């Protein structure tokens, strides 16, 4: 079994990558994800991995290089954040459309402007429809565990989609925290050799040429997109299988979502990322006062685990959806839209309301989450809501 160590999420990403030992890594440094590449390139220089490390001049080139390498059959990884992810944009869709199981370590940071290096989830939320699997992490341990599982999920023959693993910028990326690291051998055994797939090198070796990325006009494009959508749908079945195998081997089990004291709750919040831990503390405090509070943490956002979300929230009376993203649609944040569509078909559904918090790294403390729960309690008393969207911790 593994050993207890202190690592930041960036270190955990880099160590995980070392243990996975990918064939190719192409990346460009950006705050707060720089350390991932910095530490990993040292592993390459020290000969601890067999990885071909490609230095590139931009994130667009980084993902382009990953796409080329992955198309050639290499197990391929990269890492980025914020503007770097934004600069990869058109290549994100190419990676997923070509069904290339690239793994990307993403450190969540807001998008400019105004320029800011701190955490919110606007960067990866923008990429939620790009065909990548998206897994978010609450702490350093989950960052590491999600990365290792991500490889298996992405490469699964019935999924074959790229996968992003998220961690919160600075809050986790630069927070040294106790975690349990697996041994190199355990990780190696778990990720194993990638399952076979069509690729350029294989095609060349077998002298059976293939084309990747050919022009695909109205006669076939639709069918290919339909197949891609099926891959995402299959991920709904594959992710729990991989998580179960991971849990059986290493003792840490993960679902699409984490239900925290929500089974018998009247009121609850939905959160993503590091705020979940702070939220659990608030839930415990409320429970001590006899208030039936709960928390739903979304770990996997793509594919969207509709059934899990429905099951978790169907018996609640009031639900507050907390999000580190502003939707800029004069209505609500993106997660609110997604959760409310999940629940729409239920005959009896909770009152939903939306709280946007923590933009640009604004700290969210126990008292901020208490404000949210107080609002939910008021709605519970009155039986109706008076607002759909409220901002927590902003001066206005």
């Amino acid at each position, binding site marked *: 079994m593994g050993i207890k160590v202190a690592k930041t999420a960036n270190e955990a990403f880099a160590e995980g990558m070392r243990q996975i030992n990918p064939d190719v890594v192409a990346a460009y440094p950006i705050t707060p994800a720089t350390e991932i590449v910095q530490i990993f390139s040292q592993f390459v220089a020290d000969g601890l991995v067999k990885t071909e490390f490609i230095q590139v001049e931009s994130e667009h080139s980084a993902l382009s290089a990953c796409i080329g390498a992955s198309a050639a059959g290499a197990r391929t990884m990269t890492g980025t954040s914020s503007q770097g992810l934004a600069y990869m944009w058109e290549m994100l869709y190419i990676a997923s459309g070509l069904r290339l199981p690239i793994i990307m370590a993403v450190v969540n940071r807001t998008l400019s402007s105004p320029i800011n290096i*701190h955490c919110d989830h606007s960067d990866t939320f923008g990429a939620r429809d790009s065909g990548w699997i998206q897994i978010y992490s609450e702490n350093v341990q989950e960052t590491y565990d999600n990365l290792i599982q991500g490889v298996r999920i992405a490469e699964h023959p019935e999924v074959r989609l790229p996968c992003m693993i998220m961690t*919160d910028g600075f809050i986790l990326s*630069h*927070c*040294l925290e106790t975690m349990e690291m697996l041994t190199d051998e355990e990780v190696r055994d778990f990720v194993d050799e990638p399952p076979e797939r069509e690729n350029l090198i294989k095609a060349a070796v077998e002298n059976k040429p293939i084309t990747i990325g050919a022009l695909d006009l109205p006669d076939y494009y639709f069918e290919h997109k339909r197949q891609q959508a099926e891959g995402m749908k299959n991920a709904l079945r594959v992710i729990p299988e991989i998580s179960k195998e991971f849990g059986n081997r290493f003792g840490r089990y993960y679902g699409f979502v984490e239900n925290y004291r929500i089974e018998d709750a009247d009121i609850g919040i939905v959160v993503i990322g590091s705020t979940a831990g*702070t939220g659990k503390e608030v839930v415990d405090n409320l429970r001590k006062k006899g208030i039936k509070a709960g928390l739903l943490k979304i770990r996997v956002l793509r594919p969207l685990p509709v059934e899990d979300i429905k099951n978790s929230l169907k018996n609640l009376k009031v639900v507050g959806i907390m999000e580190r993203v502003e939707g800029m649609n004069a209505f609500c944040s993106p997660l609110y839209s997604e959760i409310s569509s999940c629940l729409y078909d239920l005959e009896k559904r909770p009152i939903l309301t939306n709280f946007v918090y923590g933009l640009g790294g604004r700290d969210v*403390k126990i008292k901020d989450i208490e404000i949210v729960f107080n609002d939910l309690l008021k709605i519970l008393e009155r039986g109706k809501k008076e607002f759909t969207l409220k901002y927590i911790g902003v001066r206005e």
Partner: protein
Amino acid sequence: MKEIFEIRWHGRGGQGAKTAALLFGDACLSTGKYIQAFPEYGPERMGAPVTSFNRISPSPIRIHYGIENPDIVVVLDFSLIQQVNVCEGLDEKEGILLVNSPLSSEQIRKKINFKGKIYTVDASKIAIETIGRNIPNTPMIGALVKVTGILTLEELLHDTKKKLEVKFRNKPEIIEGNLKAIERAYNEVKGE
């Protein structure tokens, strides 16, 4: 001791406030405690005021936000107490202020409005005499351990030695100097 013990470090960019939090966190980890160590990211110019934080707990730590009410504040640079409110959020009864300064705690108290416990140690002098440079962070960890009792001196020395041996294999004098600095600060810290 409450469930989660919280520490705030004040220093100037380049003085090792971040490293101190990381080293101390790591040393606590080696005794089986759960830890967090994180800096506050702002303009990190050399000489600018910086802060970093530790959480230490016997059980896993779930919360992730800045520390508002530390149990102890460690000041690596004496001149900061005129510039930053180092006592912010510190409890007037239970809170502890630990300052790197040749002054006594009574002399410090005259300069700031704080009624809690104040401890001082001349960590800069100790660092110059033992390590050869004014790097007050390692001796301050020694003083912190004495004042809080979170670790024993032996545990701290053992862990620091193990870490420095990896980094300074070919410079035994640096390892020796740092260990001596910790031990001296541990013995020389005074206060009320």
